[in-house]
């Protein structure tokens, strides 16, 4: 059996992170195929329910990609995202739910490398953390 391959769901903001992922592509930067990107207009429009649903469905990690602080195309969406993710992660911490499975990262349109690095890093971290235990449970 090969090594454990985690599955990561990514929410990428249209203006920065999605464009950063594109740049990683046009620059042919190679990174592990463990991420399933979903384009959203703004990191501030990522509902915690999406993240929870991904984890409950068995995703091993969830990445939210937004514009760098100060750079949000919609003025302040990333600040809102930052609060919401913080709340979610605190809840997870309180409940011992491995909050390191949820990450938010600022990746600009010119940071193809940062995107590739972020995905690589997260993949190896999740590999180390092991499979999401929810995947084994049917009573969720």
């Amino acid at each position: 059996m090969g090594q454990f391959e985690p599955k990561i769901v990514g929410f990428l903001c249209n203006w920065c992170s999605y464009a950063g992922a594109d740049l990683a592509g046009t620059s042919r930067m190679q990174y592990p195929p463990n991420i399933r990107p979903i384009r959203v207009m703004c990191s501030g429009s990522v509902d915690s329910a999406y993240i929870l649903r991904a984890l409950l469905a068995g995703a091993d990690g969830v990445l939210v990609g937004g514009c760098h602080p100060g750079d949000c195309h919609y003025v302040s969406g990333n600040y809102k995202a930052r609060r919401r993710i913080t709340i979610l992660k605190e809840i997870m911490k309180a409940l011992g739910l491995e909050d390191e499975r949820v990450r938010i990262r600022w990746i600009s349109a010119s940071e193809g490398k940062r995107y590739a690095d972020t995905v690589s890093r997260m993949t190896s971290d999740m590999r180390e953390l092991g499979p999401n235990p929810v995947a084994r449970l049917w009573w969720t």
Partner: protein
Amino acid sequence: MDVKGAAMARGVLMRVKNRNLRQSINSLLADLLNKGLLEAVLVPQPVSSKESVVQTLVTEPEKLEGANVLAPVLPVSSAQIVSHITRLGASPKPLGLVMRSCEIRALIELVKLKQASLDNLVTIGIDCLGTYSVRDYADMVSRKEDPTHSLLEGVKEGEEGSYLRPACRVCEHSVPAFGDLTVGFIGLEWEEKFILEAGSQRGEEILAALHLDSSQSFPQREKAISQLTQERTNKRDELFSRTRKEISGWENLSSVFATCINCHNCMTACPLCYCKECFFSSSTFEFEPSKYLQLADRKGILKMPTDTLLFHLGRMNHMAVCCVGCGLCEQACPSNIALLKIFKMVGHQVQGVFKYVPGRSLEEEIPLAVFKEDELEKVGEE
């Protein structure tokens, strides 16, 4: 409402007539109605069987005779009732509300969420030693016990009823921290005296109209309160550490919630779940038959009803920052899921990040409605 701050302000000592605290408070309320200082009061009244109480809106002073603001039972948070009354607009006339600390705190949150208006309301906080669950209260009455009396007596004897709801056993807010007026008896010979404190301009005006001079301080009471608060805080922390062990991790947590039947009673009873229709019961969660089969296919087995844990975690995301720890969710659960300790612990942690205390003040903004440029800088970095 202009609030002066903590309830441990100065107050006036009142005499209990006929060693009956309940009646003495009722006659104070009747006095407020008679003098036209209030046009109506919201108070709990025992039902005819005496096995529970219901909230009533009273305009005639004589209808206050049967009221029991001390009855240690909380079938519904009066914050929710106040929201019903004032959501569409302020009360046209002065309306008095007799509320426990958790109810006032919930009300403050609802006001911030535009679900209630404090205009023309006079909040009358009352000390609370805790409440019994609706079922325990009814059992006690049917055993011909007087729950009100036995709780007050028990406390005097240094023991609190072991039947108290779990929420109350770990409640750090026996005394309302917010109120135009506060009726206090903790730390006093409750069969002889109680105190009346003013917590706002409005409250002082009322005391002045009643010719009461609220300049006394009660060091003994303050001591008793801080002692009680300390005891319960300790119990709370013990509960938290126990809970952390019990429910930590996906496996434990999901088995706690596994018996959830998705009735959403917890949400209906929660004074802070103000949505008309819960997002988790909206059409977003209505699936085509093929979708169910698809979901079942993922693990080969699918628990029905689906998405119960998602509902609880999602609800937590929406309201944990505002959770006042009243525990009505747990009281409402037909599956006896121990919700309070989970929600209270999570709330405590999330609120801590934003140094937010629900119900502390009207000025503090709800963490979900605001955000700052320079905060949480570490989130988003390695």
